[in-house]
């Protein structure tokens, strides 16, 4: 069992060194989010970790989600964080960061989780000769091998045919979130120098005609 683990690490080294480098830099960036004193630096490390995740997904051959993560996470969510930190004056972060820096315990916990999941609850039967009973079962979509152009085309074929209702509901969720954010933050007592043009131009006969 343990020999299998080391064989896999050996194969990972022989596969691609850049893949391992990507994983290492991703791990570093994720831990540096919570180690940086300045909150802007933590958001920069968050953006770099999203970039590393997108490159990681390119190695797996999921090019659509690599680009989608760049657009959504880096382009929308990180920018939201940045705007909020611009509006907020954070000085007490320096006081709260004097706690212990947890870097190695996470790795130990993950290795423990690996052993618990894959040696006591062995639900993933990744042998070529599938001789065991697996928990997961296959669904029969229509045969996508004839229609294969890219992962995006297959996703569209399933999403708009079988999950169209969920797609529409996702749009409704986004609409409600947008309305909710604006309704939360809006301030009625805000004095704005808005001009009401119709009131300025408006006249009536009592102003203009003097019938003495």
């Amino acid at each position, binding site marked *: 069992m343990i020999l299998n683990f080391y064989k896999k690490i050996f194969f990972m080294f022989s596969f691609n060194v850049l893949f391992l480098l990507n994983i290492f830099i991703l791990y570093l960036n994720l831990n540096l989010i919570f180690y940086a004193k300045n909150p802007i630096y933590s958001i920069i490390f968050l953006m770099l970790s999203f970039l590393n995740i997108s490159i990681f997904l390119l190695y797996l051959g999921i090019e659509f989600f690599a680009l989608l993560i760049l657009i959504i996470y880096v382009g929308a969510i990180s920018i939201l964080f940045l705007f909020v930190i611009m509006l*907020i004056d954070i000085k007490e972060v320096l006081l709260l960061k004097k706690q212990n820096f947890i870097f190695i315990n996470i790795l130990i916990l993950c290795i423990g989780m690996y052993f618990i999941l894959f040696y006591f609850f062995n639900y993933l039967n990744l042998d070529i000769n599938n001789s065991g009973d697996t928990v997961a079962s296959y669904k029969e979509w229509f045969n996508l091998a004839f229609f294969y152009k890219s992962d995006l085309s297959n996703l569209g074929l399933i999403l708009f045919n079988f999950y169209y209702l969920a797609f529409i509901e996702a749009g409704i969720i986004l609409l409600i979130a947008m309305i909710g954010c604006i309704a939360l933050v809006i301030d009625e007592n805000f004095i704005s120098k808005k001009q009401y043009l119709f009131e300025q131009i408006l006249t009536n006969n009592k102003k203009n005609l003097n019938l003495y």
Partner: protein
Amino acid sequence: MIFYDLIILFAISIFFIGFINLISYKKNLILILLSLEVMLLGINVSFLTSSLIFDDIEGYIFTMFILVVAGSEISIGLALTILFYRAKSVIYTDSINFLKS
């Protein structure tokens, strides 16, 4: 590929990085939201790799919905932090005691 389970291990490690930093930095609201994002990222990666393992498209579809929900939830959370900062002028979760008499 030979090492799908190591990729899932890595996705679980991303989740646990976010989780442990969530419970250790409970006093700062913005770090809580950042760790929530990191957890959702780890879950996304695990769904995508499991779709590769089982050769099924459902993993892709569910990640799209997770991305939708993540975006909307973060926007509302940040709107609430802005409101909280307006009321108290600090970002310190121990001082969320508006209902206290």
